[in-house]
């Protein structure tokens, strides 16, 4: 490629990515040249500003045409924009948590890294949403994963954090390898890494050996990505990693990483396998053929996540299992494969982002003060800080999926999709509802601690500014989208025609 044609590419569609990348570079240099004694918090604040600016840049592209550069490896379509907005919103809130995090256990030495590693990981996630090619998808995935490994272990002198990082690296690399292995089969069959080219080549597949190979590739990719989503039975790493990592990192893993995981699942599985024929042109695509397997994973994830959560005594482990369960609900939406799947997944991820990050904000305040992550540390929170207690109550009610909150509308959406698919997934929908009822036990278990039990110590909390912002956004958002969900529905439907754009 000559320099001239290189310059003629429409680089402006990468503005949000460049913004983040540029600011990371500046922050690294700042950290290097800043005097040692100066407070690194500033770096975090600059990061937040950068993410918000990237969000504005992304939002300004909403409603534009589908564009792609660099041989279709980087594309901007409605799907990319919609999920990029979620990731950036989640990333900004996580950084708010991070700047309110009191560094200890070695984090104080790497405080600046703490902030820009979040941004690097976020950049990886953003690349994933816009990838039209297996190579960029994989690079995005690794760019997200590697900083996450470091972040999980950033509390250098804390043994749980070390364990957490170790487990995460090993499990993450294995899953990446499995995914890559699966991808290699697809590449071998089609001779291309471009997703849409693959799709058109696979649409006429009729050799049964090829179908067999492709099914194998499908299963391997599902297994590999299942690790990333922490879907059962590949969820074992999540509780240990969530427990050991610093709270903002846990929040990041449970929200931003998970959103990115769903992005890659949808991109690969839907484009490549959504059209791959099982028996010549016009036959059932592999993805539909394998729906039952996805359903089993979804059901197992919901059941295991919710049931094991019942026995937890550590709040971060409990939220690890809760986030596994929520991945299960999202997989139900994906399994149903209805056209409104994009909307229900997007909306649920939005609701999940709000309620989970809000809950983690409170968990961070309470556990940091108590110096322990036992659920019993929440005892008497209602007396110590009614504001925190009531906020947590609202967020837990949203997580449990009670009406009046975004969590309820999100579940309703998924539920409706599962039922009006033909044939309806009645069993899966029933499991989802039953699992939800089970989840009442542990969500309300936290509430009994907060509202019914007496406090061990009656000291008050200082709530840092960052936490206040996160809580405000989370609580107002959860209630607003619970009562007037059409704000979000209309935004999506009027501006982002995901289905039409997705295969362009």
């Amino acid at each position, binding site marked *: 490629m000559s320099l001239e044609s290189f310059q003629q590419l429409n680089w402006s569609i990468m503005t949000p990515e460049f913004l983040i990348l540029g600011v990371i570079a500046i922050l690294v240099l700042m950290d290097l040249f800043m005097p040692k004694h100066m407070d690194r918090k500033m770096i975090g604040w600059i990061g937040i500003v950068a993410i918000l600016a990237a969000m504005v840049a992304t939002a300004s592209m909403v409603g534009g045409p589908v564009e792609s550069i660099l041989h279709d490896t980087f594309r901007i379509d409605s799907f990319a924009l919609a999920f990029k907005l979620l990731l950036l919103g989640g990333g900004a809130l996580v950084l708010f948590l991070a700047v309110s995090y009191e560094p200890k256990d070695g984090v104080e030495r790497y405080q600046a890294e703490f902030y820009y590693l979040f941004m690097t990981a976020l950049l990886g996630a953003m690349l994933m949403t816009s990838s039209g090619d297996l190579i960029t998808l994989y690079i995005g995935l690794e760019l997200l994963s590697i900083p996450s490994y470091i972040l999980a272990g950033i509390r250098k002198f804390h043994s749980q954090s070390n364990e957490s990082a170790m487990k995460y690296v090993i499990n993450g690399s294995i899953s990446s390898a499995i995914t890559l292995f699966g991808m290699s089969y697809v590449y071998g069959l089609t001779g291309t890494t471009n997703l849409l080219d693959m799709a058109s080549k696979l649409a006429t597949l009729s050799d049964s050996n090829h179908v067999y190979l492709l099914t194998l590739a499908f299963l391997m990719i599902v297994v590999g990505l299942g690790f990333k989503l922490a879907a059962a039975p590949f969820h074992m790493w999540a509780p240990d990693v969530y427990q050991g990592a610093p709270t903002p990192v846990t929040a990041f893993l449970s929200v931003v990483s998970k959103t990115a995981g769903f992005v890659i699942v949808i991109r690969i599985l839907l484009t490549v396998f959504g059209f791959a024929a099982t028996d010549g042109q016009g036959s059932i695509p592999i993805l539909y053929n394998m729906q039952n397997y996805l359903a089993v994973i979804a059901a197992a994830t919901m059941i295991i996540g919710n049931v094991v959560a019942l026995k937890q005594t550590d709040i971060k482990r409990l939220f690890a299992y809760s986030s596994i369960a929520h991945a299960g609900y999202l997989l139900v939406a994906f399994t149903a494969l*209805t*056209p*409104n799947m994009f*909307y229900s997944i997007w909306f649920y991820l939005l609701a999940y982002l709000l309620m989970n990050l809000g809950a983690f904000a409170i968990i961070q305040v309470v556990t940091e003060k108590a110096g322990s992550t036992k659920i019993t540390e929440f005892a008497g929170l209602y007396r110590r800080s009614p504001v925190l207690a009531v906020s947590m109550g609202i967020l837990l*009610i949203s997580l449990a999926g*009670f*009406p*009046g909150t975004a969590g*309820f*509308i999100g579940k*309703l*959406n998924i*539920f*409706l999709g599962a*039922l*009006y698919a033909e044939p*309806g997934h*009645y069993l899966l*929908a*029933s499991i989802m*509802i*039953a699992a*939800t*009822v089970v989840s*009442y*036990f542990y969500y*309300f278990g936290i*509430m*009994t601690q907060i*509202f*019914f039990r007496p406090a061990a110590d009656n000291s008050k909390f200082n709530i840092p500014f960052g936490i206040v912002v996160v809580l405000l956004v989370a609580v107002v958002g959860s209630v607003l989208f619970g009562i007037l*969900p*059409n704000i979000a*529905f209309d935004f999506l*439907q009027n501006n982002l*025609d995901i*289905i*039409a754009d997705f295969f362009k």
Partner: protein
Amino acid sequence: MNLHAVLSLLVFSPLVGIIVLAILPKSQEIAIKAVGFLATLPPLALSLAVYAHYLAGKSLSDFSVSVPWIQFRGLQPDEPAYAVNYELAISGFQLLLVVLTSVVSTLAALGACRFIKKEWKGYFMLFLLLVTGMLGLFTAENMVLFFIFFEVTLIPTFFLIGKWGYFEKEKAAFSFLIYNGFGSAVLLIVIMILLAKTGTTNIVMLKEIIADPSVGLSADFKLGLFIALLIAFGVKLPIFPLHSWMLRVHVQAPPSVVMIHSGILLKIGAYGLIRFGMGIFPDQFKQLAVLLAILGVINLLYGAFLAFIQTDFKMVLAYSSISHMGIVLMGLAAMNEAGIQGAIFQVVSHGLISALLFFLVGVLYERTETSLIGNLGGLAKGMPLTAGFLLAAAMASLGLPGMSGFVSEFMAFLGLFKVEPWIAAVGSIGIIMTAVYLLRAVLGMTFGKAFRDFDGVLDLRGLELVPVLVLMLLIVLIGVYPSVLSSPLQATLETIMLGLGG
């Protein structure tokens, strides 16, 4: 005044009280109690105004309101097919329940001022939220909205039981939450299937769609949905064997909450069965009528026999509630005008009677810190007024002519004897048992052997007399002049009978 806003105002007016309470400082006990009580008055006044509007001969459909609310995206990208509107409306049957709810709520708020000893602020905020939920679910015109209000009642009730209850309150609260959560989950499945298959949850439209044979829903499918509804509301009613949670709640919750719980929340089960079960699935209801009648008799006898051996008066009343809900089921299963009317009468009448009984239990417990029958012997001497009202309430409950219990039981049995004489005959043992267990318990307390002396124990006085007198008056009013209930019901009954094809 715009009549369409009346129902929304009626439902959401208690929320104003919550906002005021949120501002008040915790220590202002009297102000908090006053606000908590006063906030129940607007719904009361409005519901009575709606009743007056009806008595003036004007149509209740003047109050209907329907505003677009949520549009779930449909299968086709361009059609917003799955619309859920904000729809409130009121019919004669709903009107009765709304009036019942607002009356009992106001009286329960009065009771709470007396019985609740700590953290009034939180109590009244949750209580008012509960009132909003109850009023909302009786006026909701589509099933999604009904479900939302239904769940809104769950959360405050959970906290009211778990925080202000007696010794085993947390266990009772969880048992309440899980059973009702399970019931509402089943209900949600039904609602969502209906929404997915028919595109609406409006009750009137569903009625037509389900009755229309050209819509492709097989008979088995409808039967399945109906059975699911039966389970969902069976938990709430409660139907044996889904009742164990309700015993715990009756015993562990504070009396002012039990007044609401036994008086109104249990009635949601009956309301749901009539409105959705009978209204939307009349053919399926017919198919299972005998089963329902048998379940009703089981409830009636099971409750009555177990009530007979209880030593705690609260347990007697809890089992008596199960027993009386059996009569509701029996009346419904008769599927004729007398039976259904009897069932609805029983719903209202039991709501008033049990609210009264639990108020009296609350008074007794407050004075003596016990509700064991054996420990309360000789009450008539120490607390003559309380004992007198207790006896009167028990008489109403066992169906003494001239009181509301009699009219309802009489009609429910009349209806069932017409269609299933044998089942009804077995059921009538229950009537005798009711008299036996209630008299055993109440006479044991009022005239029984004195266990202690009641020196220095105050009788009913001052504001405490208000709930007692109001409830007693209403019970007698219905007993001697039943058309206060039957005339608003007429239109509802006609529609139901039309749906049943008889």
